[in-house]
């Protein structure tokens, strides 16, 4: 993946002013953006997905321009081919698991699924072990099942890049570690580039080939794997130590 990101976005709310000014060139398959809440991680991801238009700058992915303020280019989110897994998963509550996975593949007013689409939904259900839950609604699922459904829904459209917004934060700690391992396997199987944001240092060593630390709207540090991280007791600052085992 070749990701070029240069975005400026000013936000004003109730007298407070926040400026996002992120400059980033990433060429690994797994970029993890780390930072405290309010640092601008989510806004960065939303600009990349096309949900929010930056005020200025340029975004390109594998040579294709997605956004360019000077040339007035802003490819709409639906045409970017970028999957997005929301923090709370945002599964459509009125659709079943199979419905959530298949809805993007339905065509026309009759909501038809052709042979290929139906086969892909079945593949996803099998791959994510959701066959028995296919007719369940999101409210009937556990946290882990919701996350698997959200991943299956995104991957069913075969995106060229997957964005993840704190994908493990809604899970309890025991499940979190297991889902992390599952996710590493999944990413290798699909060979799918991803950009993930997190404020959990535990995500970094396992998942990041490239670590980007964002603080107060700016890139504070970049590190390519292998590296080690530690958060000294009593502080919230992250210490990144180059070297060590290579992340998957």
């Amino acid at each position: 993946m070749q990701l070029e990101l240069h975005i400026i976005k000013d936000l004003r709310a109730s007298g407070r002013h926040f400026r996002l000014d992120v400059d980033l060139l990433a060429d690994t398959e797994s970029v993890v953006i780390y930072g405290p809440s309010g640092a601008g991680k989510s806004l960065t991801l939303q600009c990349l997905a096309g949900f929010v238009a930056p005020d200025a700058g340029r975004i390109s992915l594998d040579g294709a321009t997605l956004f360019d303020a000077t040339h007035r280019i802003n490819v709409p989110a639906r045409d970017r081919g970028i999957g997005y897994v929301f923090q709370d998963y945002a599964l459509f509550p009125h659709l079943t698991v199979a419905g959530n996975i298949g809805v993007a593949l339905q065509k026309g007013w009759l909501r038809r699924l052709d042979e290929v689409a139906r086969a892909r939904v079945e593949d996803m259900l099998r791959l994510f072990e959701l066959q028995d839950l296919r007719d369940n609604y999101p409210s009937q699922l556990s946290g882990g099942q919701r996350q698997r459904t959200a991943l299956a829904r995104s991957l069913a459209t075969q995106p060229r890049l997957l964005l993840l917004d704190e994908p493990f934060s809604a899970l309890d700690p025991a499940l979190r570690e297991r889902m992390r391992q599952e996710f590493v396997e999944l990413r290798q199987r699909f060979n799918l580039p991803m950009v993930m944001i997190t404020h959990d240092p535990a995500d970094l060593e396992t998942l990041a080939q490239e670590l980007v630390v964002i603080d107060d709207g700016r890139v504070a540090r970049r590190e390519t794997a292998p590296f080690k991280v530690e958060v000294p007791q009593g502080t919230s600052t992250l210490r990144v130590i180059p070297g060590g085992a290579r992340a998957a």
Partner: protein
Amino acid sequence: MLSEAAVPLLLTLKVAGWATLLALVAGVAFAFLLARMRFPGREVLDAMLTLPMVMPPTVLGYYLLVLLGKRGPIGAFLQENFGINLIFTWQGAVIAAALVAFPLVYKAARAAFEDVDANFERAGRSLGFSEVKVFFRITLPLAWHGILAGTMLAFARALGEFGATLMVAGSLPGRTQTLSIAIYEAVQAGDDDAANRLVIIVSVLCIFVLVVAGRVLQGSYRRAFRY
């Protein structure tokens, strides 16, 4: 005896039905516009759209007469180009009832649209949905309960409409004389038996509509899907 009540009853249902349909389409369109778009004068427009709920129906009726009458801008246009006259017709009664019922749909629909989490719509876009698909596959199904509840209230309001309808459509028996107008006429004529029958019909009808509306109102999507 029954047929004497059946004529205004059927007319009332016809007028209220069409009025509700008009109010539904216009109410949903304006509600979506104001819930999703940011533009100057948005809140002023909101106040204008809510006005029919608080203004005296006779004032609304007067406005409609001015606009739709033979010398009014809309009335003259319709008369010249299509030969249509709305004053003293059941279609005129529909317009009057729709205007009075409109804010009930609009208010409920706007609240329902604003209640739909924006991330559901974003999720649809990131899955490649067109804006039309986002609206019909995500936003509308999730807002539907609230819209339906508002629509039931609008129907109940249209059933009982009196003032604006009387001013625009008059009281022509069998043509524009709806139930509530027939009741007024019966009381004026001293026909207590007829008034009693009509009053009971209207009361039962309104209670029925409100009970159904209450059932629907209970299920916002959050509760319906336990989200």
